[in-house]
């Protein structure tokens, strides 16, 4: 087991290093720099700024410098002057809190709907839920976000339109974030549970006269939820670090916006910082999902 975990940790850091290197050089390939603008600075001023911020150093030297400071967990100041780690520290909790709400919503609603649809097999309720789920997967979150704003805020005046700070303000964005995962989880749970319900041991349980509720909770659900685990790792990483679109539409000062803003602004330290942070969260959660799964299913451990 320890060997398995060590292997996983090693591959996590190796992947991070590869990502760091790729991101660094790809980012430098994009034309433009933080000071390129429609209103151009005089050439010598532009050049002086580039020299001041070390952008004129040879690329391999810039890379080594970055690597050295990244090992010390120093991600440098962003071009706005504030340390990258400080920006992440301030904005990540906001995105994470919103993300947790959305994950809670996705899991509770998704699993309930999935179970319900599986139990109502071939009835109209099940068809309606599955149809909604298909819609949920295909509607992009920005359309849903605007729709939610229009109906629940502007027309019905039930929730605040935008901004961040109160629980009410977090409801619309978390619904917008959760919609697609809800749809996905519903379908996943429905498919798995329907399969499991057809299996022999469930039939046996029925014929033994166990109450249906107990059969679902104790026997069927446990086995039909395990495929959720690998999906959950990815979902959690995506949702926790924030979504550009949802944060932009609802005016939420989370981390998600920085992924896009930093690229538009060519804010190199910020691009690196956000990419590394996201990669770390994603890889870490996948790692946890792997470990948990290996406990549930020992075959995974021995196969590596």
């Amino acid at each position, binding site marked *: 087991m320890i060997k398995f975990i060590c292997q996983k940790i090693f591959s996590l850091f190796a992947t991070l290093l590869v990502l760091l290197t790729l991101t660094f050089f790809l980012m430098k390939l994009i*034309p433009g720099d933080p000071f390129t*603008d429609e209103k151009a*600075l005089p*050439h010598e001023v532009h050049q002086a700024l580039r020299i*001041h911020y070390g952008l004129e150093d040879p690329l391999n030297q810039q890379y080594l410098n970055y690597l050295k400071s990244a090992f010390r967990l120093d991600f440098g100041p962003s071009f*706005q002057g504030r340390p990258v780690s400080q920006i992440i520290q301030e904005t990540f909790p906001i995105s994470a809190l919103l993300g947790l709400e959305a994950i809670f919503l996705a899991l509770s609603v998704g699993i309930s709907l999935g179970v319900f649809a599986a139990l109502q097999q071939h009835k109209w309720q099940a068809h309606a839920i599955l149809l909604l789920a298909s819609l949920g997967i295909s509607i992009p979150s920005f359309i849903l976000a605007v729709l939610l704003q229009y109906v629940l805020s502007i027309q019905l005046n039930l929730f605040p339109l935008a901004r961040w700070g109160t629980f009410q303000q977090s409801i619309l964005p978390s619904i917008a974030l959760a919609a697609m995962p809800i749809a996905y989880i519903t379908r996943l749970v429905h498919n798995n549970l329907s399969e499991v319900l057809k299996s022999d041991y469930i039939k046996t349980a029925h014929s033994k006269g166990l109450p249906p509720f107990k059969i679902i909770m104790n026997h069927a659900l446990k086995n039909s939820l395990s495929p959720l685990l690998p999906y959950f790792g990815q979902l959690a990483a995506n949702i926790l670090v924030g979504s550009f679109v949802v944060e932009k539409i609802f*005016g939420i*000062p989370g981390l998600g916006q920085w992924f896009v803003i930093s690229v538009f602004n060519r804010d190199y330290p910020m691009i690196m910082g956000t990419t590394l942070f996201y990669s770390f969260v994603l890889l870490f959660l996948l790692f946890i999902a792997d470990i948990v799964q290996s406990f549930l299913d020992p075959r995974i451990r021995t196969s590596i």
Partner: protein
Amino acid sequence: MKKLFSLIIIGSLLFTACKKDSQSKNESAVIKIAFDHDPTSLDPRLGYDLLTANALQMIYEGLMRIDYHGNVVPGIAESVDISPDHKTYTFLLRESSWSNGTPLTAYDFQESWKSILNPSFPAPNAYQFYYIKGAKAYKEGKIPFEEVGIKANDPKHLVVELENPTPFFLKLVSSFFYLPVSSEMRQPSEKMREEVISNGPYKLNQWKRNDELILVKNPYYWDAKVVSIDKMALTILDENTSFKLFEMDHLDRAGSPTATLPQDAMASLKHQHLLKVKPAAATHWFRFNTEAHPMNHVKIRKAFNKALNRKDIVEHVTQGNQIPATGVVPPTVSWKTVHYFSDNDVPGAWELFQEALIDMNIDKDAFPPVTLTYAATDRDHKIAQAVQQQWTKAFGIKIDLQRLEPKIFSENVLNGHYQIATGSWYADFSDPINFLEIFKYKANASNRTKWENSDYIHLLNASAKETDSLKRSKILEQAEAILMDQMPVAPLFFATFNYLENDNIGGVGLSNLGILDFKYAYIEDTNANLP
């Protein structure tokens, strides 16, 4: 299921109850404004976009300021004395202090400007000081600061010597480039200071990054008695969200110059008479790459210029009461409006095009396809499509559109990788020279057309030495005529600032440079508007 429904209903009632509660505490005078993004910095030496300039002008005040009517009036300076040769300006400072209570002196201005010009300081705007004697040489490390024409004789007097008589110097001094920086913020430090000490009508109270800047009235401002707004909230919002919040009465101001309005909403806003419009000292144009075939041919450039239907674009695409441009210098800046050509002159364009083909000795079918490059914004995309149609219709040739991410666009145009490109200029100070100087040298980073003309350079140099304003205007007019005769740029329209502003609010100044002034802002009887 029934339980769940009742829960939702009770819940929603609770939320609406909370909301009403927060609306009723409206005792202090607060103005809420939409901002498109965070200011780049609240250190005046580091900012360089219009939004940042606005945030800076709210919390700082320079020696001169622009008043409600757009005139340059004394600010921290009580008066200014100009020498007969127009080269020495002596500013007498009034009694004033920083927002932490320490007195503001002429030395603060001297040291602020010195630090911008310091060769090792990364100041994007240092070149705006090059009108001052020795400033450029000091920035390049060639002379000591003692030889630069900036000198505080005592705490009250600041003397500035200029290289040339510069008739727009006081306008320049009223811009954010020349704002003072407190000694605390001047301390060289790697980290940007979180605390901002300023000297304007308002001061920074809180800056929640990427979310909101809260400004409050600055009690130490020298003219604090006229400031009637207690608090300003500058909220960072997406254009669609800010538009909706304005409609729901949660915002007092949306749109330019600190943000944008959704292009799709313009027509209906105009129809409902909600859209407010102020002319800007700004021109949108098409740059021609004058070194690349076929745009190196002046008749082709002029033909493309003549075939533009500017009125159509202004009325049906941009829809913000912009003025079709038949010159480079906007009317709000100019001595008079000169029409160098007429708009939508398709027959004239066709004639020039034919002449050019004969000169080039080619057939129309052999004319190469022309690419129009533009930055991927909603508005530019619509403009490009309209112009593509106009040119195709006028000449029967193929026009390709190339849409690029904004920074890649700027980089490509700067390096001359284009044939025709969209572009614009928003003035730094309200004088024709600010527009004409762009095209003075090929090497100017903002020129990008590769065009240079010795007569043009000669005229601009002459204008810098001319102290008589009427004669100077004549010289600049001649220069503009050369520019329009050679046509390295085809003017499209003179821009406007389009915004929504709550009718309760008055006294907000907006200069043609796009600088808002909230010093004299007030809110009319707010109780009358409560339900």
